[in-house]
């Protein structure tokens, strides 16, 4: 791999994640609208929303500190950095020396951490409520997330995401060893719903005081700050979908940097991610949002499944 190739591949991956993420959000909204027998907004509506917000001015409360203005940038930057470490269309990405799955998780955690602080910073009741709820959910999803990726990592023999994806792609993906993989997949799917604030944990479509979590935290933001936060959460969603599809069904991903394979891999990735987005849309239409205190049950399932997948490997395959 030459210098130029490395640069090109990294840039391509960054651009794809950046540009595709609003589309996925639009796709989920469209699926939900269709299932509710509505026409629904255009698939590209999120792009228009973002450009509109980016052009608008910003209102900042006088009670806030530097944290409030810095958070959108930190969130966006950390999510973007994390997205560079996740293989999208090439299993051995050039930046894989820079960190493993733990780095990815901690980058995402960093963004969420600052977002929670910013929610508290403005001193509004909603922000504080949102932050405290986010903290509960976050502390429950994180272990399940790490455990479920580790369970797959054990089969692949590494905690490096790139190596995991590469090795499972060389084997048979989820068919290599279905029981632990399927448990980890179910766990990571629940984690995805919780982390990206989807039904049944949170509802991204409402601003109802009693139920909102993510929306409550960012209630004080406006203009380009809000645009950055929305964009970052769209990227986070796409990142999780990419993780789900490339860890468990890495079929189609390019294992060598050949241009033709990579082009095909981009297509395969787009299909898989869109399919997952449709599944999430259907899921959101089928289930009602859980009461906050019931969310722990769902996350408990995720944690137990992830733990089982891990124990499974040590006790029964070791």
């Amino acid at each position, binding site marked *: 791999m030459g210098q130029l190739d490395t640069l090109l591949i990294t840039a391509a991956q960054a651009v794809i994640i950046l540009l595709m993420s609003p589309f996925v959000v639009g796709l989920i909204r469209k699926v939900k609208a269709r299932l509710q027998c509505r026409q629904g907004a255009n698939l590209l509506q999120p792009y228009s929303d973002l450009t509109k917000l980016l052009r608008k001015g910003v209102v900042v409360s006088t009670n806030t500190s530097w944290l409030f203005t810095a958070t959108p940038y930190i969130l966006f930057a950390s999510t973007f950095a994390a997205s560079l470490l996740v293989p999208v269309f090439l299993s051995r990405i050039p930046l894989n020396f820079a960190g493993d799955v733990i780095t990815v998780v901690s980058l995402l955690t960093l963004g969420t951490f600052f977002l929670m602080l910013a929610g508290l910073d403005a001193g509004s009741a909603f922000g504080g409520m949102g932050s405290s709820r986010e903290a509960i959910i976050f502390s429950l999803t994180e272990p399940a997330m790490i455990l479920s990726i580790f369970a797959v990592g054990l089969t692949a023999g590494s905690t490096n995401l790139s190596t995991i994806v590469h090795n499972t*792609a060389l084997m048979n993906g989820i068919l290599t060893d279905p029981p632990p993989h399927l448990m980890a997949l179910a766990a990571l799917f629940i984690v995805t719903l919780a982390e990206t604030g989807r039904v049944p944990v949170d509802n991204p479509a409402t601003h109802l005081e009693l139920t909102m979590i993510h929306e409550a935290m960012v209630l004080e933001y406006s203009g380009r700050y809000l645009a950055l936060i929305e964009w970052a959460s769209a990227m986070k969603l796409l990142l999780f979908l990419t993780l789900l599809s490339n860890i468990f069904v890495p079929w189609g991903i390019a294992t060598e940097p050949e241009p033709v394979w990579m082009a095909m891999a981009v297509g395969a990735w787009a299909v898989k991610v869109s399919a997952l987005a449709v599944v999430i849309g259907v899921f959101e239409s089928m289930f009602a949002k859980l009461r906050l205190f019931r969310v722990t049950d769902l996350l408990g399932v995720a944690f137990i499944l992830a733990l089982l997948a891990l124990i499974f490997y040590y006790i029964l395959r070791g």
Partner: protein
Amino acid sequence: MPLSLHPDLGSQLINLCSMLLLLTTFAIVAQRRLSACVDLFALQSLFLAVTAAVVAWFTDSPHIYIAALLTIAIKTVTIPMILKKVIERVNVKREIEFVINIPPSLLICGALVILAFSVTEPIAKLGFLLTRDSLAIALAIVLIGFFMMIARKKAVTQIVGFLMMENGLFLGATASAYGMPLIVELGVFFDVLVAALIIGVYTHRLQDTFDSVDTTKLTGLKE
């Protein structure tokens, strides 16, 4: 990159399908709404039918297709319908009541899965099972169904537990032993159907006599 077919793709597919059954089992344990429990049971039975069909395809034993069709007819359609009627009739509160709450239930179920795998390990090691894990998964489902019957208060959830046990048994018979002979399968199906009906009848009588289907209220008989 082309999809490389693993030599024992069939057995891995069967493992995958049986694992889907186990996942629905967990979903049922974590479920609070009674009607959702019944729906999930119907889904589980559907997965069971798919598993049976996959086994039939890979082992070339056509009689299992009949068993798969019967599973759909009886366990995905008829029995859930009966259960829904029972729920409607006895006017059960929508939320399930627990003897053991959900999070500890899940931990126990996790332990049961591990138990099932370690108990069946000597058999799996013999190496002539159709798949490596199906028997263990089947046993895990049987044990979790058993646990459901103990850990839930409502008569209807206990029926679901019993039916889950039956699903596990059927999975064990199909996925580890190529299915029992057809006449046996038919007899088992008939028995399960009648058993579900009888429990339904009993639930009605409980409701009529005790004004409730909470089985923890059955405390008249003791030493």
